[in-house]
């Protein structure tokens, strides 16, 4: 589904990312861990064609992301606040995103209804602008918007941040369910080793821009990761 080829990215001469080859199969939940500055967000931005690689390229469904547009209809993403239009109400934002993704008015209402449990009654019908909601609620909106329009790939950068404990659990269930039902490929980064081993089939550890470990999740994965990150 996603293929990374000889990819390098450097900022002001300092190498931020260097991945020789990485292949992510359809329907995998791909977890990305690593300390600050390891290159997680850089990789995601490259996947989404938000920054230009120095060398190499990334393909989604066999097409280079930098030279085509079709992948955008297959991909939902939420990296940071830059993916939210903060002067809209949540409903208006979903409507805008839905329309761009080609959903009808009914589809959009259906989607909002489906997400009601995830929102826990704190997002819809509040008549508040997104910028006046708490960070956690903004995070929920961003994650939900990434799931709109039946995407085949969903990219989430540290989605567990600022979510309350119950919502973290709801998010885990949501990811598992979507993976089962729709065979969505997830790319998720996180600092929470528990969560990421819980939901992901495959975990890649980044260190200084390079792949340090590439693990298929098993019984002892969590212990191995904890050992790796121990100080």
């Amino acid at each position, binding site marked *: 589904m996603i293929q990374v080829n000889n990819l390098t990215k450097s900022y002001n001469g300092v190498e931020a990312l260097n991945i020789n080859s990485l292949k992510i199969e359809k329907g995998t939940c791909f977890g990305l861990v690593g300390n600050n500055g390891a290159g997680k967000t850089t990789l995601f931005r490259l996947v*989404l*064609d*938000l*920054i*230009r690689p120095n060398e190499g390229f990334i393909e989604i469904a066999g097409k280079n992301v930098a030279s085509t*547009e079709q992948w*955008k*209809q297959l*991909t939902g*993403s939420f*990296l*940071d*606040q*830059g*993916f*939210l*239009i*903060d*002067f*809209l*109400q949540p409903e*208006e934002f979903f*409507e*805008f*995103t839905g*329309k*761009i*993704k080609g959903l009808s008015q009914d589809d959009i209402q259906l989607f909002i209804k489906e997400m009601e449990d995830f929102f826990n009654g704190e997002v819809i019908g509040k*008549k*508040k*602008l997104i*910028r*006046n909601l708490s960070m956690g609620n903004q995070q929920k909106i961003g994650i939900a918007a990434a799931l709109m329009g039946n995407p085949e790939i969903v990219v989430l950068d540290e989605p567990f941040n600022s979510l309350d404990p119950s919502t973290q659990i709801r998010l885990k269930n949501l990811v598992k369910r979507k993976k089962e039902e729709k065979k969505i490929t997830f790319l998720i980064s996180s600092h929470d080793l528990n969560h990421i081993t819980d939901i992901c089939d495959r975990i890649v550890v980044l260190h200084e821009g390079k792949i340090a470990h590439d693990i298929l999740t098993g019984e002892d994965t969590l212990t191995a990761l904890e050992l790796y990150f121990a100080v």
Partner: protein
Amino acid sequence: MLIQSFISHQWKQAVRSTIWQKSLAMNIFMFFIGFILFAEVMVLSIFIGSEWHDIVKDTEPLKAFYKVIAYYFSAMFVMRFLMQQLPVLEVRPYLHLPVKKNYLLHFILGKGALNFFNLVSIIFFTPFAFFQIGYYYGNLTAVVWLVSMLFIDLTINYLIIYIKKQLVNSLTIVSIMIAVIGFLALGDYLKWYSYSSLFADFIETMIKSQVLFVLPIVLAAFVYWINFRFLSRNLYIENLSSYTKKTDNQIGNVGYLKNFGVIGEIIGVDIKLYLRNKRTKSMLYLSPLFLAYGLMFYPQDQYERDGGMMIFVGIFMTGILMVNYLQYAFAYEGSYFDMLLTSGINFKEYIRAKFITASILVSVSFILTLPYFLFGIEIFFINTACFLFNLGMVIPIALYFATYNKKSLNLSQGSAFNYQGVGASHWLFLIPFFIGPLVIYLPFKWFGNPTLGYIVLGSIGLIALVFRQFFIRIILKNITERKYIMAAGFRERG
């Protein structure tokens, strides 16, 4: 010392901002313009100050100059309103520290006294004070007189700060103020009274009965206090994001747009952007003033004969709203530009939406300026030519250059403190848009056929209109090439 660290933070903020570093040319240009103005005012005021009695040949030279001062102050008022930056301090990082709130407020307001216009006033008044007032009344009176003039200037300074801040807070107060000022100006115009003579009499009385010198100081202190009170009431964080009013959250819903698919959605978001953010809202409030620009020029005969000025006024009135919108068409959306890039939005439609909104703005401005035909039917023809030129030619050019505007503008933090207002650089950016049409028109005028000049101007607009799809493709290509640079610029907040 606290004040030293404040000043050093401010300095670092200014110097380290990427905008400063990246648009060095712009800054040098601004400095250059400022320097020339400065030097001119200095030479002129020394000359006038020392030679005034020879220049006017009036029996009361001082009184004649007081009348000049009256007009100086009212011109200053308008200039400041359009160009003066508001003093800004990002208070949030300091609010939780053991710093006295009043100290922060005085710092902000004190910073407001340091600006270009106040410097101009010092240069303007000082030579006259010593050459003329000193000559007639002695140097001590000259100093006191100078100080009181500068305090009147400070009063205007703080009045402008207050008005500009209220502009986004309470439209009522601003409307009342504008109504009062307009009424006073009208009274002067209709000769119910003479503003300049009254002012001159006041200054004369002031010099004679020394006590009145206190009045400007009291006035300045009063306006300062009003500002202070306003700021201290708006210091709390909950006020910083004061958009909890439910009515505000509803405005900008235009159901009609839903019939136009994705383009309608994009325009809808643009409308909400304009109506729900303070910065853009204050721009909208100013627009009636732009449309009234013609009133300053049309009633006067000498301008009516000068076609170049008429073109300028026409381009300005029909185009200023559109140019203001397009100049920041992408920058205003900078805070969610990443989302636009990844969402699968068709960028061709996105650009078309911008074209449509801009065309509507130009058309509405044109319709609103139609009544000016009362000043002469040729004004109608000139404005029509300007409208066509704006519609066909200026829109694509402005949108093309908007892709080079990669400074992220913080729209939502529209508090009294964090106000990226309309400053001088904003206006300088617009100069090329107004020079272009003149370059086209003036040769025709010089060769004795100004009417043909208008026709050519309008025709260029019409022809450009036919090539709109071509322009859209060029802008699309430019965005595709520049999107990484733009996105990186927008990601650098603050």
